[in-house]
């Protein structure tokens, strides 16, 4: 199994994922700045390069050349380790997300997924739960009360929302009876019901709408994005866990946040929006192109990549969009929503899904 072919394809897949993930941050910083500006009736950065696209590069350059300042009261070793600890899990999680279906090369199936793992979704949860260590470490090593408050808040928030996040997808797992993301994406290609010429696919959002909303909210909380960005509430605790961080170390926290967002968006689109399943209309275009053989296959894979990319892009935009629309929740409201509303709701969702499967509705 582990011959040259395997090594080459796996290497290429890992490289592809890594390159995409590294591009996420600069692009998203640009989207965030331009998006927020346009929403607030401003223009945003539009000078560096066309439409200000090179702005992120300039930012990165600035971060690299900034003075690497270390506060004297910090625990040095953990202070330096913390940004890395928060960045590495963010990059690791994407490994099990499929970004297209499979293709036959030389009579061998190549799956577009960096690691095809039996535990799939559990792996994502396991690794994503490690991201909190970076934040704890940062808060503690900074040796600053506001940083510690930020990291404590973040920890409490992440643990609370991990529960409803995990429970909200149980419904999906029950319907597709698998935790492997590739299988779930494949299962969503089935047709739920035919509406004249339009076939409604068995996307997760149609069969698990409640689960979808709970999961989406939890993803917002897990990635520390507004309206749940309590860990860095500027007005209350200055900047939270990355208060004492500057230059590239701060940028690493930034990167971790955006890569986490990207993984979150990818998981949401895989679980609830069909993953790499083509968007409505795309199969028709593919057929009308009239390719055959390998060309057809490669075009299909390209279309699937495109569909997946568009879905993920939409959710990335949703993150930005929501951030500049909603104000921050109060901390007790956050905990109330998590424990008193979403947790019972997701339990009810599991129960109802179980009943529906038992009666053969799903």
């Amino acid at each position: 199994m582990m011959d040259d072919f395997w090594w080459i394809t796996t290497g290429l897949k890992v490289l592809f994922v890594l390159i995409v993930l590294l591009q996420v941050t600069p692009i998203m910083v640009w989207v965030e700045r331009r998006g927020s500006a346009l929403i607030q009736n401003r223009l945003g950065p539009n000078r560096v390069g066309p439409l200000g696209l090179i702005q992120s590069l300039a930012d990165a350059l600035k971060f690299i050349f900034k003075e690497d300042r270390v506060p004297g009261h910090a625990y040095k070793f953990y202070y330096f380790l913390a940004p890395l600890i928060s960045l590495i899990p963010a990059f690791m999680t994407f490994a099990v997300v499929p970004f297209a279906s499979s293709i036959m090369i030389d009579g061998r199936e190549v799956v577009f997924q960096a690691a095809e793992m039996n535990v799939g979704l559990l792996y994502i949860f396991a690794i994503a739960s490690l991201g909190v260590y970076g934040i704890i470490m940062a808060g503690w090593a900074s040796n600053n009360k506001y940083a510690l408050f930020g990291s404590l808040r973040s920890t409490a928030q992440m643990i609370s929302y991990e529960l409803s996040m995990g429970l909200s997808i149980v419904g999906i797992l029950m319907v597709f009876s698998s935790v492997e993301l590739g299988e779930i994406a494949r299962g969503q290609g089935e047709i739920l019901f035919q509406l004249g010429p339009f076939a409604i696919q068995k996307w997760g959002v149609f069969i698990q709408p409640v689960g979808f909303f709970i999961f989406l909210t939890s993803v917002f909380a897990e990635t520390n994005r507004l309206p749940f960005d309590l860990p860095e509430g500027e007005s209350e605790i200055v900047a939270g866990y990355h208060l004492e961080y500057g230059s590239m170390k701060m940028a690493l926290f930034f990167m971790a946040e955006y890569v986490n967002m990207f993984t979150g968006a990818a998981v949401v689109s895989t679980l609830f929006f069909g993953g790499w399943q083509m968007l409505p209309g795309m199969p028709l275009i593919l057929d009308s192109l009239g390719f055959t053989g390998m060309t057809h296959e490669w075009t299909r894979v390209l279309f699937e990549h495109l569909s997946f990319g568009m879905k993920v892009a939409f959710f990335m935009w949703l993150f930005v969009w929501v951030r500049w629309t909603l104000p921050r929740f109060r901390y007790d409201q956050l905990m109330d929503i998590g424990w008193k509303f979403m947790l019972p709701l997701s339990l009810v969702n599991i129960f109802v899904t179980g009943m529906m499967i038992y009666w053969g509705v799903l």
Partner: protein
Amino acid sequence: MSQIQPVFFYFFAGVAIAFSLLVIFKKNPVSSAFSLVMVFFAFAGIYALLQAHLVATLQILVYTGAIMVLFVFVLMLLNIKNTPIDWKGTSLIRIGTTVGVSAMLAVFFIVSFKKANFVPASGLFSPERVDEMGGNTQVLAELMFSEYILPFELTSVLLLGAIVGTVAIAMRKNKRGES
């Protein structure tokens, strides 16, 4: 695959032992806790090498992702000071005895395991068979919800009891504090 396995095993085992020692010898309790996280990681690596991916994942999910986070949380809140070990009270004889006994125990275990001619018992679920049956997760899930449904449910009841007990104790203490 089987050729590279020993390398990884010794790597993870080494990491586990090294960080276990750090857990004990680090003066700062939070550093000890972080070292313990690394130990759990190494364990997860070893489980993964044994083709038990689910156990490895659960190890990370439950121990590193949840339990140790709470541990670190509590340690940070308690704000324990670095206490240097007071060597004055311990006599040299006591230290010598401890080291000697542990060394003897180690030798005893190594010799007895070598002598025992230990043949690993291969049960019903070898890696190959598990793969045939649809992978770790499926096999475990099916077993849990068929053959072992009663112990599984009873465990959850036990956990629920523990939660209720904890809350009850905490609430009673609170009331006493108020009055």
